[in-house]
């Protein structure tokens, strides 16, 4: 093996190349082995130490929670580093699960552990995840004052949602409109499900404010965000009195079928007023080229369930050529089955009998002791 390897004007013996390669791989193997084993031993020791103290700490924590005279400060001062970590993870778990008076005692423990102050520092100096962890702690502890005291403003949509959630859970907004504006004014990207849920919680307290903010801003939103807001509107309490729902009806004309679908479902919920409905060209809507959108329109009409809507829906279903969309429509009609003349229901064919029978099984399973029908 005396060959010479030449590259880039250099010549080296093949033996040297192989020896260098072997050394590099050998070194990499040694490093990887000790790194893996070392890390495994470290994590195992940590887990064992945590497991050893967990039960006892849990007992003491519960005792302190139910005893108003228990001194958290003294207790926390006697904890080791590992014990403090375990207590913080228990605290996180209980704050998410418990409600009522006990939670206030747990929040006092959070203060004794210095979590709120630490979170303020993390907000000012940490990276995105550090800031999200901090906002989560402040939400669980309901300490918006630490947010206000920090030199911090949200930089991402997730942080914006986390700030809104903190202030919502802490009753820190003067009114729901403030929270809705924080989430939606100037928003340029979609939310995660956490942000969408936060918008829903705040919007539920004042649906008119949500519809109003949406009406003023919807044209500036990217389509995925618009769809999310429309989906939230679908879940709001029905019966809003907002005068202007033109942005919702305009969304029915969007090019994107996801927007049209979400708009139809939202209108099914909030478009209960006769004047809103009379503005819509129902016959044109049920002729939408997208089966997905037509399915949503059928559900909207079934939700309204006035005579005009039902007539339009039945007419459309009789002419519906896509079997799955027809099925969607008949399923939506399920709750109005008693209002339908039998001959019109029969005209819907297999889709009607199928959805009718499945609705019966749904009711039976929900109420196993009851009578089927």
């Amino acid at each position, binding site marked *: 093996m005396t060959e010479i390897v030449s590259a880039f004007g250099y010549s080296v013996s093949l033996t040297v190349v192989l020896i260098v390669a072997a050394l590099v791989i050998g070194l990499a*193997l040694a490093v990887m082995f000790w790194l893996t084993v070392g890390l495994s031993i470290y994590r195992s020791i940590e887990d064992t130490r945590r497991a050893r103290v967990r039960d006892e700490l849990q007992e003491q924590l519960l005792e302190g929670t139910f005893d108003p005279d228990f001194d958290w400060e003294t207790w926390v001062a006697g904890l080791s580093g590992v014990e403090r970590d375990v207590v913080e993870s228990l605290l996180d778990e209980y704050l998410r699960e418990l409600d009522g008076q006990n939670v206030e005692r747990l929040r006092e423990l959070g203060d004794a552990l210095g979590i709120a102050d630490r979170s303020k520092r993390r907000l000012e100096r940490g990276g995105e995840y550090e800031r999200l962890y901090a906002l989560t702690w402040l939400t669980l502890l309901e300490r918006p004052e630490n947010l206000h005291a920090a030199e911090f403003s949200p930089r991402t949509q997730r942080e914006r949602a986390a700030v809104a959630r903190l202030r919502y859970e802490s009753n820190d907004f003067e009114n729901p409109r403030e929270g809705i504006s924080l989430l939606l004014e100037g928003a340029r990207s*979609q939310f*995660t*499900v956490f942000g969408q*849920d936060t918008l829903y919680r705040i919007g539920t307290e004042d649906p008119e404010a949500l519809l109003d903010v949406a009406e003023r801003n919807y044209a500036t939103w990217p389509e995925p965000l618009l769809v999310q807001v429309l989906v939230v509107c679908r879940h709001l309490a029905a019966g809003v009195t907002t005068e202007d729902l033109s942005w919702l009806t305009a969304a029915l004309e969007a090019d994107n079928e996801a927007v049209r679908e979400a708009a139809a479902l939202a209108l099914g919920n909030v478009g209960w007023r006769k004047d809103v409905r009379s503005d819509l060209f129902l016959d044109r809507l049920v002729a939408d080229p997208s089966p997905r959108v037509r399915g949503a329109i059928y559900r909207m009409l079934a939700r309204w369930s006035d005579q005009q809507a039902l007539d339009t829906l039945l007419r459309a279903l009789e002419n519906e050529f896509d079997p799955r969309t027809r099925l969607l429509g008949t399923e939506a009609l399920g709750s109005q089955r008693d209002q339908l003349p039998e001959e019109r229901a029969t005209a819907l064919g297999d889709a009607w009998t*199928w959805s009718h*029978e499945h609705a019966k099984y749904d009711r039976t399973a929900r109420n*196993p002791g009851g009578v089927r029908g």
Partner: protein
Amino acid sequence: MHTLDHAVVQFIVGFGLFVVGFYVLINGYYLCIHVLALLELRDDVRESRWDPPFRRFASPFYPGIGIVVPAYNEAATVVESVQSLLALNYPEVEIVVVNDGSTDETLERLVENFDLEAVEAEVPIDVPAEEIHDVYRSTIYEELLVVDKDNGGKSDALNAGVWLTDMPLFCAVDSDTVIDRDALLELVGPFLERPETAVASGGVIRVANECSIEDGIVKSVTLPKTGLPGLQVMEYLRAFYSGRLGLNRIKGLILISGAFGLFRTDVVREIGGYRQDTITEDFDIVVRLHRHLMDEGRAYTVDFVPEPVAWTEVPSTRRVLGRQRRRWYRGMVETVVTNRRMLFNPTYGRVGTVVMPLFVAAETIGPLVEGIGYLVLPLAWYFGFLDVEFVLIFFLLTTGFGVFLSWFGVFSEVWSFNRYDSPSQIVRLLWYGVLENLGYRQWKTLVAWQGLLEYLKGVDTWGAMERAGFGTEEE
């Protein structure tokens, strides 16, 4: 004769040079993938540690999931499997069990245990599957639907479920797979982050042999003590965990395990569902999704989520493992051949120009080249120009690098979710990383060649998987 000798020598020398070049290319690719996996894992771990302060079960924004379970002659386990699925933590699920023409008592066991009744109405939609005899509803579980149909194979059964579920997402699950209780809540993550573009996400498949499982929950995770399942743990960690994480980093995930994957129902229906004439339907469906969505110019994502885990029993005998791996190899070749238009085609972006060609080179051609190498060595020795010293060093280098990549996978596991939490298990796992190079790897090259021959002969059977069953605490 002299000319023949010369030709053989030329071939062997040329092949040797090709092997060295090929080795450098493939291992460079693997190294990149594993480094990318580590970066991806860092982000995933940080993300998984952030638990937003809201109650997921009270949120109306989690999309419903239809769990589609194809069942063929699963009478022994089907009731336990369905009970385990009914206990999953997720706001809205529909479980669609498709009895694929079982010849045992699979259907009877389901009817009896879940109080099923046949729906009288005709199915009002066309389902691209073998004839459906009956659809059953449970009178005690609203979310359970059982479809009884003629036998048509796994893809056919999956299609029946995909067409009959009402849910916007569906999860394809093998009936012998145990899913972690919260796995769906994690697996749905990409669909919550990017509801308009996410089309598929896959979780981690782990080896359940010797783990103790009670009431459909993995109570303790144990590394198998016997060699063959242990070697497969190592393989799963490297290929199904680290490898997929790396591909996810470059938005090039082309395979989601059939035992545990979540898909957008309407998009899968759009491409006609699972292909009935394939034996690796999981690989085929993901590649076709890429192809279809890129052909249509639509924005989409296919994601790998490292935390949700599904547990499956792997073969513990060489005979059954060989049968499984030959089937995987056949299916891989078939899918690659079917979708060959994607290879080196810039229309398919990074998937077509980088991921698929390197995947084919590494996973399809790699074992074949290695197999030829083992034949060429004695030939070279016979002709008297085998440089034994070079071959030995080359073997040690390639093996050393292979072990390094395997250990990289183990390190990723320890650093992130650390399911094998005892250091002694980790040391054993590292040992498996060495051991697999001594016989197992060479045996797999033989299996690859057998798989190729079966593909060329048109073999299209699945072969039965023989299972020992999951252990319980008492055992």
